[in-house]
Every structure is written in C-alpha cells, then in structure tokens.
C-alpha cells in the first residue's frame, strides 16, 4: 500500500525525468543516425541497383591469382604500370611514389611463401574518401577510387587513413608526364585501375598490370564487373576460395586474392 502511494507521488517527477532523458537521448543519437544515413544512402542505392536482373551500374574489380604469378610476373606488372602511367621509383627511396608494388609474404607458422602485386584496393567504403577534407579523394559510380588533382590540397590525411598503404605523395618536381596520367607535385596519387582504358573499352578493358601477365586463357589478374553475376570475375569469385585483405575492417575492397 505504502509503495503504491510512493509511486503516485513520484509519478510527475519520474515523468519529467523520463521526458528529459528521452530528449537527451534523441539529441545525442540523432546526429549519429543522420551521419550513418548520409554515409550509407549511396551504398544502398548501389546495392538496390545490383538486385535487379541486369545491374544498372557496373562495379569494376580485380581477382588476382597468386598461384599463377611468379616473381617475374609481378615485376612485369609493376613495370607495365610504370610505363602506362609514367612513374618510376628508385630502389630504397622512401619518398618515391609506388602505384603498385611487389610484396613477399612468408607465413609465420608454416613458412610458406607467396609473392603478389599490391595496389589500391578500390574499396566500396573507402576510408581515404571519408577523411578527405575537400572531397578530392572520391569514388566514381563504377567503384573506382581516384584523386581529383585539381582539388587535392596535399594534406596526406588519406594516406594516414588507407589500410593498404596504397597511396603516395609526390615529393619531387615532375617532368615528362603522360597525357593519360596527369600528376602534380604536392598532391597524392594511387592506382587508377587504368581508368582511361576502362572509359575507352568498358567491360572489355584490360588494365596494364593484367595485360602484362595474362596469356591466352590463363588470366592471373582478372578484371571485370563485380555487379554482373554472369561476368567471368563474378563466376570465379563464386567458385573459388578467395581472400580480401583486411576484410575485418568492412571496407569491402574491389580487389580479391586467390591462393592466399
């Protein structure tokens, strides 16, 4: 009986408290929800587009078969990219740009060795795009992650945020640039997935690194549309066990590795 009376007396105070708490919770949570919705709106649109029979927009990606790549092959990838985009790197210089690099892996437990090419992973949720203050770091509708050379201010925050060390800052004055790959001192750059070839040839495009190592039917680096379930890359991703680097981060890379 006494406790019931207590409750009645406390009700207005409790109601006020609940109202206050609800208002506070709303104030605190609303900005987060807004941010989440803004961040995911684009992703959802793309996902919905993929659910239809024919995907409206492609998402370009790579499947790299490390079993089919020798060390010489990976060197060939790197040289082909350098020729295609006009960059070079002196051995041992920590300031040189590297759009693609050869990585040697040794399993710490088994000692098994792997060699693979490493480049921008063209994430669906790229951290470099999230952190770029001016929006110079951007993702195209077809999933290619690029740097707008005209609005990059050279703050290097994208390089801090990239989980794959895919980006380089141009530390030196450049000469003899190629028309397909404009570069500029004081800005950041990375693999473009040979976007100039893709814009020219569409689904039939072959990035320079893939061209250097693919022979006939043996495609050690397979380029294709991840949104098209009938594409060769989607088929092979379905039938083979593949690995996406740092999948735990949830950034959904567009590059997958087979045999890792």
């Amino acid at each position, binding site marked *: 009986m006494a406790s019931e009376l207590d409750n009645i007396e406390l009700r207005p105070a409790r109601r006020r408290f609940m109202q206050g708490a609800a208002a506070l919770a709303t104030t605190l949570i609303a900005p987060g929800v807004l941010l989440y919705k803004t961040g995911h709106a684009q992703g959802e649109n793309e996902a919905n587009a993929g659910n239809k029979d024919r995907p409206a927009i492609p998402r370009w990606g790579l499947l790299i078969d490390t079993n089919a790549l020798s060390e010489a092959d990976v060197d060939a990838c790197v040289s082909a990219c350098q020729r295609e985009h006009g960059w070079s790197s002196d051995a041992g210089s920590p300031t040189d740009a590297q759009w693609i690099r050869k*990585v040697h892996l040794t399993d710490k437990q088994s000692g098994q060795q792997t060699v693979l090419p490493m480049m921008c992973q063209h994430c669906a949720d790229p951290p470099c795009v999230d952190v770029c203050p001016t929006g110079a770091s951007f993702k195209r509708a077809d999933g290619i992650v690029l740097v707008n050379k005209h609005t990059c201010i050279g703050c290097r925050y994208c390089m801090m945020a990239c989980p794959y060390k895919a980006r380089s800052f141009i530390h030196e004055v450049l000469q003899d640039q190629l028309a397909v790959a404009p570069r500029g001192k004081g800005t950041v750059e990375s693999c473009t997935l040979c976007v100039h070839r893709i814009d020219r040839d569409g689904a039939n495009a072959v990035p320079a690194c893939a061209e250097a190592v693919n022979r006939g039917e043996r495609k050690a680096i397979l380029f294709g549309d991840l949104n098209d379930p009938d594409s060769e890359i989607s088929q092979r991703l379905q039938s083979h066990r593949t690995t996406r680097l740092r999948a735990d*981060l949830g950034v959904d890379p567009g590059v997958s590795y087979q045999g890792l």
Partner: protein
Amino acid sequence: MLLAILAAVGIGAAHHMDVEGHHISGMNNQVVWGLPHVFAIFLIVAASGALNLASIASVFGKIEYKPLARFSAVLSIALLVGGLAVLLLDLGRPDRLIVAMTHYNFKSIFAWNIILYSGFIVIALAYLWLMMERRFERWSKPAGMFAFAWRLILTTGTGSIFGFLVAREAYDSALLAPMFIVMSFSFGLAVFILLLLASFKLDQRELDGIHLQRLRKLLGLFSIGILYFVMLFHLTKLYGTQNHGFERFILLDGGVYTQLFWLFQIALGTLLPLFLLYAPRWQNSPKSLVLACLLIIQGGFAQLYVIIVGGQAFPLNIFPGYHVESSFFDGVIGTYTPSLWELLLGCAGLAGALLIALLVLRVLPILPQSLPGAKD
C-alpha cells in the same frame, strides 16, 4: 624583433619546401606527417587550453581570475593562428587554401576541424570584445560558456583526427579525444603561466602569490590527468594480444620513440614537474613553477612526437600472420629524420603566435591596471 625574424625565416623555409617539393623535408611516403605537425598540433591544443583562465572566470564564476581572462583569450587566438599557419604552410599545395575553404566533405574530421578552428577564432574574438566593452560585460558570461563548450568540441575534433583512424594500431581509440582535452588544459596553462610571468617580469612587477599557488595546483592536476589517460590508453592496447607488437615498439624497443616516451614525456615531462609543483620545499618558489612549465611543454612536444611520428613509423598490419617484405617498406619501421626546414617552419609558428600575443598586449589594454602587479 627576434620573433619577427624567426617567423619570417620559417615562412621562407615553407616557401622553399613548396618550390622544391617535400623531399627536402624528412617526411616520406611512410611517415607522412612530421615535425611541422607536432608543432602545429601542440599550438592548436595549447590554444584551446590557454582559454582556461577565461573559462574559470566566466564559466565557473571565480572572479579573482577575471583580470587575467582577456590575456587568456588573446593568447588562445594567437596560438591557434600560429598552429594553423604551420599546418597550412606544410600542405602539398598551400596555394589551394581557397579550395579548402570552399569544398567541404562533411564526413571528414579535417573538414569539421576547419569549421571548428575558424569558428573558435570568431567566438574567442567576440568573447574578448564583450569582456573589453563595459556596456556588454554581462554578455561575457554566456559568451564564455559558449567558447568553453566550443573549445571542448574543438579539442575532441583534434584528438579524433587520430582516434578515428581505424586501420592503424597506434590510433583507433576514442580515448585520444579526452586525452587531447586534458593535454590542452595542461599545455595551454603552462604556456599561459610562462608568458604571464615573463610579461610581469619585463615590467618589473610582482604577481600576488595566491594566484600562482592556485595555478600551480591546477597545472599539477592536469599533469596527473594526462598521466592517467596515457596509462589507460596503453593498458587498453596491452590487453589485446594483437597490439603487443605496437606496444613493444613504443614502450620497449622503439629506439628514439621509446626514449622520448619514458625519458622526455614521462620522467621529465610528467613526474619531475609534479615533484616541482607539489613538493613542500618548492611550493613557494616561482622558479620551480617556471621550470615545471618548461618541462611540461617539452613533455608535450615529446608526447605529440611519439603519438604522431611514432604511430606512423610502426608499420601497417595489412597481412596478419605473415612476415612481409616489399620495395615500399611494408612490414618495416618507417624512418624519419626531421630536416632543418621543418624545424624552421615549426619554430616560425611558435614565434608568430608569441609575436601576435605580444603585439596585442602592447596595443590593447589586455592586462588591467587594478590587479596587483598588472601592466600599466
């Protein structure tokens, strides 16, 4: 005069770096942020903290601090301008400032910070004006509260530049935001006390002991606060096995970073100042307070160097479970030796900030006449 020369030399150094490219700095594609960022972030963090005295007077109603509030606001603006100048001049394309001011990616913490920093300068100027204009003095309290809230958010933003970097073991912690706030309280107060004592010394006046005693205790408290957050940060990292490599690097075998951490940040930058501030023998000695402030400031630089440079030097873990080698320095500790150009640029920011503070102090009635030991 010396400050003006230092600032000019630093701007010249930045121009040289802009023309030649960043290869003349010690920074590279492994350690992308270096000494200029240590200076810039120190100044920005200290700027937020320099407002402590004004906040204590306006927000917490301790009127005995009111005469110092104006100087506190002036110093705060000056330090922020100095820090931002260093950050701007270190950009790969400082000429594109207008791009940074007109293109905003609202998901970027950097973009938030651009708004937070410029907003802070406007708010602090308005606050200063309200404090100086007698007709509007009653508005200085709400303005002070607003400035206080804004600077807490501002330093949260600065800490979050690192805290939100999920891919790097050295960062990826929400603890960095409150840690930066306490760092701002401590470094800002240390700079404030030094300049206050210097300006009174220049005018051959005595500052009353009660003020100094309180500031001394407050400074010690903030130092303990930093120590708490540093311990908590490393203990959290140490608990997870996957971070043992990074913790080993900073705490045990990271060479210069380990030395900076234990010797300059912890021993000389925290423990010794605490002893100087609290030991009964030194309680009444202004010299011990000056020494403690200097030690806290060098400790702050050491701490930021370990966080910013040390955090990047530790390699990214792209392939967990593998030993990694590549031509792009995967899997190895990044190298970084600061160049003279970077040092000049950083010092120029510091000199520029002090120059602004001193000039304003000369031109405007910042330190009032009524306070014992105030400027005339």
